C-alpha cells in the first residue's frame, strides 16, 4: 500500500471526508492542548513574549517534512502525487500582510478562531464572523481584484529548486534552522518574563 491513499484509489470521496474529519478533530485537539485558542498567547507572539505559535508551527513543518522524506525513501509515499500550491508573489505578499494585521489585531487566525469558539471564547466568534464577512466582500469585489489576484505567477516552487540544493541537504538545513530557532525563541521568552500562562480569558481556568 502506498500513499497518498486517495490518489491511488484506495478509498473514495465519502471515505476521504471521514478521514478529513478525523484529521481535523485531531488537529483541533492538539491546537487547543497547545494553547492555540488563547488570543493573549497568540498576540504575545508579535511582541516576542510567547513564541508558542512559532514553535508549534515549525515543529509541524519539520515533522511533516521528515515524514514525507522518509516515507518516500521507504517506498510508502509517491511524492509526485502530492499537491504543491503554486506561488503568486505580489498577491500572496499582500495577502500575508493583511492576514498578519488581522492576526495581531484579533489575536487569532482562521484555524485558531475555530479552536477558540470550541472552548467557549467569544472573541473567536467575532474573528470567525469577520473572516466570513471578508470572504463575502472579496467574492463581491473579485471582478475588480481579478487582475491583482492572478498577477506575478511563478508556478510551483520548492526550497531545493530555489536554493539549488539537493533534497537531502535541504531537509537537514530546515531541521537545523528549526532547532536553532527553538533555542533562540526560548531565550527570548525567558528574557521577557516567560511565556503567557493560562490567563483570565481562559474559561475553565486552563488550557
Amino acid at each position, binding site marked *: 500500500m502506498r500513499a497518498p491513499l486517495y490518489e491511488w484509489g484506495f478509498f473514495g470521496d465519502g471515505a476521504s471526508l471521514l478521514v478529513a474529519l478525523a484529521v481535523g478533530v485531531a488537529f483541533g485537539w492538539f491546537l487547543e492542548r497547545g494553547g492555540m485558542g488563547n488570543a493573549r498567547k497568540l498576540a504575545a507572539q508579535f511582541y516576542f513574549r510567547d513564541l508558542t505559535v512559532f514553535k508549534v508551527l515549525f515543529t509541524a513543518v519539520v515533522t511533516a517534512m*521528515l515524514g514525507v522524506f522518509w516515507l518516500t525513501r*521507504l517506498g510508502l509515499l509517491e511524492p509526485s502525487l502530492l499537491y504543491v500550491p503554486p506561488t503568486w508573489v505580489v498577491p500572496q505578499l499582500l495577502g500575508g500582510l493583511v492576514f498578519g494585521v488581522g492576526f495581531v489585531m484579533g489575536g487569532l487566525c482562521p484555524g485558531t478562531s475555530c479552536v477558540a469558539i470550541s472552548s467557549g471564547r467569544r472573541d473567536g466568534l467575532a474573528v470567525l464572523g469577520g473572516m466570513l464577512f471578508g470572504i463575502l466582500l472579496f467574492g463581491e469585489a473579485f471582478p475588480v481584484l481579478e487582475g491583482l489576484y492572478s498577477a506575478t505567477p511563478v508556478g510551483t516552487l520548492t526550497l531545493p529548486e530555489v536554493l539549488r540544493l539537493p533534497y537531502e541537504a535541504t531537509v537537514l538545513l530546515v531541521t537545523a534552522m528549526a532547532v536553532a530557532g527553538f533555542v533562540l525563541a526560548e531565550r527570548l521568552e525567558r528574557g521577557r518574563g516567560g511565556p503567557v500562562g493560562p490567563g483570565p480569558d481562559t474559561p475553565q481556568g486552563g488550557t
Partner: protein
Amino acid sequence: MSPGRALAGAGLTLATLAALSGTGPAGAPGGDGPVELTAALASGAALVQPLELARMIRERRPVRLVDVRDSSEFIRFSLPTARNASLREMGALQPDESGPIVVYDDGSGSAVRAWLLLRRLGHEDVRVLRGGVLGWVEDVLSPILPASTAEERSRFDSVAGLSRYFGGLPKIGDPAMREAAPVRAEAAITLISRRGCY
C-alpha cells in the same frame, strides 16, 4: 532530558540521516524527476491522438491499452484490446519494451495520474489518449470531415475506413458542425452497442 530536547534530538538525527542517505530526487524509484515529467506533459509529447491509436490497433502494433475508469463503465463500453485497471493496480503492469502503454479515462484526470504513476514506476513509453473516451467517440466512431476537394476526399476515405473498421459512422460535413451539436458520447456508444460491434 526534557521532551523538547528529546524531540529536537530525534529530528536532527533523522535529518542528518536524510542528508547522508544519498543524492537524487527524494525517493524516486526510477524514471524522471518531477521537472522532466511536467515538461513532458506540458509539451504534449505524452499524448496520443485517437486516430493514431486506432491505426496502431488496426495494424496489430504492440500497444497495451489501459482503461482507468470504473469497472462498471468499462463493462458497458471500452476501447478494443483495452484492459481495466485501477490506479492501485498500476504497479502490476510489467515493463515491456516492445510497445507503448496507452492510458485513457473519461476526462476525470485519472489517466494523467496513471501516466505519472507509470512513469515514476519506471515505464519509459507511456501515453495518454487525447480526449479519453469522448476523443475516441468524436475522432474515430463519429468523425465529421469535409470532402469537397480531392485532398479532403482522400483524407475522408482514409479516416472513414478506419472508423468503419471499429463500427463507427463517419459523416461528410463541416467539422464546425461539431461545435453546434457536440457529440454525446453516451448516445454514440449506445447506438454502436446496438449495432452489435462491441
